[in-house]
């Protein structure tokens, strides 16, 4: 699992800023202006939430090398915590509830991350499953979390930041976009700082890292905490901005695997990888369903679609692991450097 150098370029490389800035401009202006309701509701909103979850998981699994199979549980913690903070404390601004919810997710993350101090690899992965099952059970079993709703469902409140209300699909889109942009920037700052280097050091050679003075215990727990915080907020976005009503079953093992797939396909140990992966994961079922009904007509019902999705997704994972283990981010980077050498600028150091 080698890291991609693009994120590790030393010092600001002027041309490297062009793409993210351009994308942000498009995201903030063109998409909401020209995008259809369908594009925003069904594509952009889940894309944003899943990308953020991917960014979070990547910090833990990609950079710090701690495999986690329970990320959906932390999304659930975030969503339900935000709901409860917002619902039970009068006058608490929503954005504060969201941040506090992230904090709760971080705390839970540290608790379930403690085994990483003793366990590695498969064993750690198995222990993260404990988080997945336990959290889902707890949220379903104890009605308090969902304000005693019989099915454990929670409804999203009105969205606002600092008094500005975000309503309608475009409003929710902006809400999500602002939060995703801010947290992604934060994650990028961490990843390119000494903390991020400590993550990679612990991943690549824990013994050497310990010996040269990297605080291994603190680093691992910090990875779990930061990652769970971000994933928790992603869960809030999933629940509040996208689905609007959500239940514990929506944060099941399949969802955890989905986020893991996102970062594998997108590129481990990169920030942009989460976005590439989420884009593919969100878009491909739509594409598949169009192709399927085009080719097979009526035979292609939802059951067939579901199963075909599973097959294609699994096959994609295997294909990426074999052919391009560094994911779409690596493919993108190769394309980018080819474009740059054609344009004539010096190739990246």
């Amino acid at each position, binding site marked *: *699992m*080698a*890291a991609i*150098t693009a994120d*590790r*370029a*030393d010092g600001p490389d002027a041309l490297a800023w062009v793409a993210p800035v351009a994308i942000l401009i498009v995201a903030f202006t063109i998409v909401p202006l020209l995008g259809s309701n369908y594009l925003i509701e069904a594509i952009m909103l889940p894309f944003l939430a899943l990308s953020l979850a991917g960014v979070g998981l990547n910090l833990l699994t990609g950079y710090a090398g701690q495999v986690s199979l329970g990320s959906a549980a932390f999304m659930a913690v975030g969503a339900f915590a935000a709901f409860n903070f917002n619902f039970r404390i009068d006058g608490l601004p929503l954005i504060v509830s969201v941040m506090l919810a992230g904090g709760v997710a971080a705390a839970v993350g540290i608790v379930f991350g403690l085994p990483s101090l003793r366990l590695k690899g498969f064993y750690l992965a198995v222990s993260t499953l404990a988080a997945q099952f336990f959290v889902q059970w707890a949220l379903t079993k104890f009605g308090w979390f969902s304000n005693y709703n019989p099915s454990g469902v929670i409804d999203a409140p009105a969205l606002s930041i600092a008094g500005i209300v975000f309503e309608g699909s475009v409003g929710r889109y902006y809400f999500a976009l602002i939060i995703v942009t801010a947290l992604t920037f*934060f994650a990028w*700052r*961490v990843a390119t*700082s*000494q*903390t991020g*280097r*400590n993550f*990679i*050091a612990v*991943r*690549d*050679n824990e*013994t*050497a*890292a*310990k*010996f*040269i*003075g*990297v*605080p*291994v215990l603190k680093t691992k727990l*910090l990875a779990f905490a*930061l990652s769970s915080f971000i994933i928790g907020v992603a869960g809030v976005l999933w629940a509040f901005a996208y689905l609007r009503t959500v239940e514990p079953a929506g944060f099941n093992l399949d969802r955890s695997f989905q986020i893991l797939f996102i970062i594998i396909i997108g590129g481990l*140990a990169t920030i942009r990888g989460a976005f590439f992966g989420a884009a593919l994961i969100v878009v491909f079922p739509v594409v598949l369903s169009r192709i399927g009904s085009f080719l097979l007509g009526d035979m292609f019902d939802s059951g067939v679609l579901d199963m075909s999705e599973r097959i294609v997704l699994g096959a994609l994972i295997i294909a990426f692991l074999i052919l391009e283990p560094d994911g779409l981010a690596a493919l993108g980077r190769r394309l980018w450097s080819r474009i740059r050498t054609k344009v004539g600028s010096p190739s990246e*150091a």
Partner: protein
Amino acid sequence: MLDAHYTFSALDGSTAFREFPSIPARPQQRSLTGDRAPPISLVDEPVLALDDISLSFGGVIALANVSLSIRPGEIRAIIGPNGAGKSSLVNVISGLYRPDSGSIRLNGYAFSRIPASRAARLGLARTFQNLALFKGLTVLENVMSGLAFARHSTFIGQALGLPWARREDRDARQRATAILGFLHLEAVSHRLAGSLPYGLQKRVELARALVANPEILLLDEPMAGMTATEKQEMAGFIRRTREIYGTTIILIEHDIGVVMGLSDRIAVLDYGRKVADGTPAEVRADQAVIDAYLGIARDDDHGDDI
């Protein structure tokens, strides 16, 4: 913060005046209780001493009653045939193995086991036999990581770009760049460490160990797998390191020719025991050493391989 100005001679013989930027004062000579140790005034006082170290794995004896002393600023080699216990010894010194008995005296303080996570702060640095680079980091980042022990900024400070965090980062970067210059690695500083050829990776590991300006540098087979030219270069770097930084160097190595030319004193291990200890000339002539390398077993040996 200490400033340091050094002259050094490049490999081609020319002398240059190089200013090495400030490095954080290494909190050396500190015991576990935080007291300052008495300064080392006598040249003969060892900077590191192993007293009667024994270590075994299961039933296999790795080290048996090994005592060793290392004087400040010397280049000390530890040699011996395969399985003699050299790596075990280095791992004991770096705190990765706990000896079954015996103690380690570092700067006048005794340890039953060196705390590996505090090794850097105690002034120890090392390279590893099987390379322990962080393959996912660039060369520069690997070397900067050698200063991780001196970092005090938190992740928040770093993420927000607070002045303290930025200064630490700048200092580390400067220091790392200087060391890369010293080892002629500037050309590859932005390449992923895992993408370099073997010989260069070894040099990067040396850089990472050196950047902390350690008091004691442990080199575990630094020339393994190198060509003759690369070995000469590495020997040159090792010599220069001692000349310029005054680092005490403990060297595990197979290539006896290199060792003879490079070291001040040599200890010879065989089957976990020290069989000779002295200057290169003394060791070369020692019958016990010759026997060990020719594989002549002694009566009281277990004959176990490690």
